[in-house]
């Protein structure tokens, strides 16, 4: 019984909470810009509103355009359920290998980019091009930064990594340093993957700067809602990965109720902190030029490589 409840929590935690954390980021950013900002629950209302609106679909759109939102959203739910959120004993053997997670997310990106191309407007195309460019370069940093942990923990299963890292007493300074380096690499990859500053501006509609928004320009109604929701999910997935893999302390190692509740609370706290940090980061740095992006992403990759060399 308890297990089933935990399962369900694990399954719906990400989609349920993700709009909230997007709201937090927006709120903090508004505050930092001396605005009052909308309520932190505003994203829920947005999704609800969009879900009930009528839709316009381009006559050029094919089934790819129609089904991409569903695929994207489903993938974020699957991935959300396959990563450690608040408990590590949850041994999801099916999809919780970190390469599976990375490639499942890539599957979403793949379809999103195709959807951007599908309707044949000028924006969608370059949006897809940029998205694929960035994601092709990001993957390396992402995989290698997690690989540092995987090699430390001798497993590539995300749950096992979390529990290992949590129970790990670090022996050498090299390991500290390497995990720190990997963390920096991961943060860079996170910002790139979730379309944040300095890579992308999630609230722009200016063709010079937009990547993600350009691809979904043609969407409206329920499909737009799903895509927005999916990208919120993605943000939460990455934040949870960051907080539970690199800073897993406090995550529940058993299905003891008290542990789990404590862990859940701690998880919310960690994620909130993360969101605040991201908002702060976004407010304090400028978006880089598109052709500067590779430098940054390569930095993330190199940092992880150094970390790997240190960790062995």
């Amino acid at each position, binding site marked *: 019984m308890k297990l089933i409840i935990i399962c369900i929590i694990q399954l719906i935690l990400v989609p349920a909470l993700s709009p909230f954390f997007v709201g937090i980021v927006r709120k903090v950013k508004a505050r930092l810009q001396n605005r009052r900002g909308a309520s932190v629950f505003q994203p829920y209302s947005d999704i609800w509103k969009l879900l009930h609106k*009528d839709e316009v*679909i381009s006559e050029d759109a094919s089934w790819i355009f129609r089904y991409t939102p569903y695929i994207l959203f489903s993938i974020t739910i699957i991935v959300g359920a396959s990563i450690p959120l608040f408990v590590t004993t949850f041994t999801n053997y099916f999809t919780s290998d970190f390469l599976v997670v990375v490639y499942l997310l890539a599957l979403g990106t793949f379809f999103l980019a195709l959807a951007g191309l599908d*309707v044949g407007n000028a924006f969608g195309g*370059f949006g897809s091009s940029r998205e694929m460019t960035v994601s*092709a370069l*990001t993957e390396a940093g992402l995989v290698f930064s997690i690989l540092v942990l995987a090699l430390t923990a001798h497993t*590539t299963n995300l749950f096992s990594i979390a529990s290992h890292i949590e129970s790990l007493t670090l022996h050498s300074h090299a390991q500290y340093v390497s995990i720190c380096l990997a963390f920096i690499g991961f943060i860079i990859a996170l910002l790139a993957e979730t379309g944040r500053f300095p890579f992308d501006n999630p609230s722009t509609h200016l063709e010079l700067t937009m990547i993600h928004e350009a691809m979904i320009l043609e969407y409206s109604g329920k499909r737009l809602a799903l895509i927005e929701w999916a990208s919120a999910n993605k943000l939460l997935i990455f934040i949870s990965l960051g907080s539970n893999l690199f800073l897993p302390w406090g995550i529940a190692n058993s299905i003891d109720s008290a542990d789990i509740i404590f862990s859940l609370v701690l998880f919310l706290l960690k994620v909130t902190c993360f969101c605040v940090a991201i908002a702060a980061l976004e407010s304090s740095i400028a978006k880089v030029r598109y*052709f500067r992006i590779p430098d940054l992403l390569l930095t993330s990759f190199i940092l992880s490589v150094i970390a790997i060399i240190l960790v062995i």
Partner: protein
Amino acid sequence: MIDILVKISFFFMLSSFIIGAVGSLVFMRNNWLANLCGNLFAFAGSAFGIITSAVILITGSVISCSLPTSFTLFTLSLHIDSLSAFFLFIISLISLLCSIYGIGYITHFFNKYNIGTLGFFYNIFIAGMVLVVTANNGLFFLIVWEIMSLASYFLVIYEHKDKENIKAGTLYFVMTHIGTAFIIFAFLLLYKTTGSFDFTIIKDNISGISPFMKNSIFVLTIIGFGTKAGIIPLHTWLPGAHPAAPSHVSALMSGVMIKTGIYMFIRIFLDILPDAPLWWGYTILIIGSISSLLGILYALIEHDIKRLLAYSSIENIGIILLGLGSALVFFSLNMKSFAIMGLIAALYHTLNHSIFKALLFMGAGSVISGTHTRNIEEYGGLIKTMPQTAFLFLIGSMAVSALPPFNGFFSEWLTFQSLFHGIKSFSFFTQLIFIIAAGSLIFTGGLAAACFVKAFGITFLARPRSEAAKHAKESSFTLRIGMASLAVLTLFFGLFAGPVSSMLSRISKSLCVFQDSESAISTQFHAVKLQDDFAIVSMPGILISLVLFITGIVIIIYLLTRNQKIRKGITWDCGTSLTPRMEITDTGFSRSLITIFGGLLKPSRQSDIEYHDANQRYFQKLNIATLGTRHDIYNTYLYKPLQGLVTIIADYVKTIQSGNINGYILYIFIAMMSLLLLFVI
């Protein structure tokens, strides 16, 4: 009992190919008869091939037979062990489906080219490949190897009215011949060491081989078979030759023929030569990294859909070599269980690549037969006119981009895992090599996705960019049958990763060197698990969750919003009228990646572009534009200098024939005098 059955089936296979070959020549005058004869017998032969290989794979038996010929040292000896049977299986499987596809595809050559010769060379080509992977005698091997090359050469130049094809064919034939020269030399060195061309005898007598000899054979083999496999920088023939052939043959060449090189790599490095030194593995890993990364980058640049696929083959050969290289390194370090894992990764990717690359080439063939062009820039919107081709091509694209739940993902995952083990375990230098390999594999994966988004998106999505694309029709039934079967296979081999891996593990263990060692991966039906719980993946799990969640979400959303109206509108056009010219082009799509990797790709630059509407522009002239279509650094830095050297020598040699008779007699005089001085003392 089984022995005899297998032999009979093998014999039937060969005779089907021969009947097919001869038959299509006989029926040369009648297009349909020649077509049916060529393809149906190829189909039958392939079916027998599948039966043969399946029986051997399942029973694990080893079949060998030998017929003496009228030539000494040269026996028609065949030896089919599990490894051969595996490659035989791949060849038969792909050629089976290619033959189905061919029946429909060939119709558009009717009355333009001779169908009979196509059928002839097609059958000979398949028979050649089949014999290459089963031959057990060096001379026999070389003969069938050359027959395979010869047949494929004629298939490459089949559309001989196109000058480019002839050029590509010539380059291919010359390269493959030079490659064969290296192979011959390697075999000669083996002969020198053991006194035989028979692989079995060589294997038995090779233990005393000197390291110098062993390393020489390694280098020669890498160059010789690497030319066929298309490793960079020996790949230059590949992007020209594969596209030039008819599409179902391209599918065979890219999907299967280049794998014969891989087969011989495995055969020689892990089976015939004993005790591979560490640097062999390093070399292969480095070659694999370079080939995979550069291969996919070149693919990104291409506008020609079949050339793009050909470059992607180079990339995939690179990935296979990463698996094989790690296997060799582990083998040298005596970590045999991991070596088996690497080998499984390589074999699995070999199988997978054959399937999805054949699928993609067939898809490309359908598109080409619909639009009569290979230029991606002239496609667009084909998903509406050719929906089924589009769907099948999409599956292929996803598989080649290693996206779950298709088969490409699993083999790439396994390759990653063996590379991770390499990073985990050894000395600094080994670790560094493995990091390079893993890094290049990751970049390759991302770039492959970008490349195939481009290939699929520009081809099938948006609005048609040309008249031809607008009026394209869905390809005929047999074409779709061929593709659909392959698409099902991509999913099948993705889904049943567990059983297939255990089969591959058995194949690997059938090699002498791995006979008494355990594989590092354990398989169940639903999951593949690595030693020490390092990693677990369940391909059925991924598929089921994807299917469940997607259908679930679709249903839920449908239930929630069934009352809503969906209005069709035109794409947002910013107030102007949107034309296909405004869509992103193929060049535009990959432009940013090309710019980023400009240092590696060395794209050509064009200066002083003048626009036809210059007076309306703010910048009336653009000084430098990156075209990114040419990347002949291999020509410039490797082949041209070599060719130049030969030409210079030839020019010197030419002066011998000066036309002066006095000089000629002087040669005789000098030759005579120097011989007298040198030899008679």
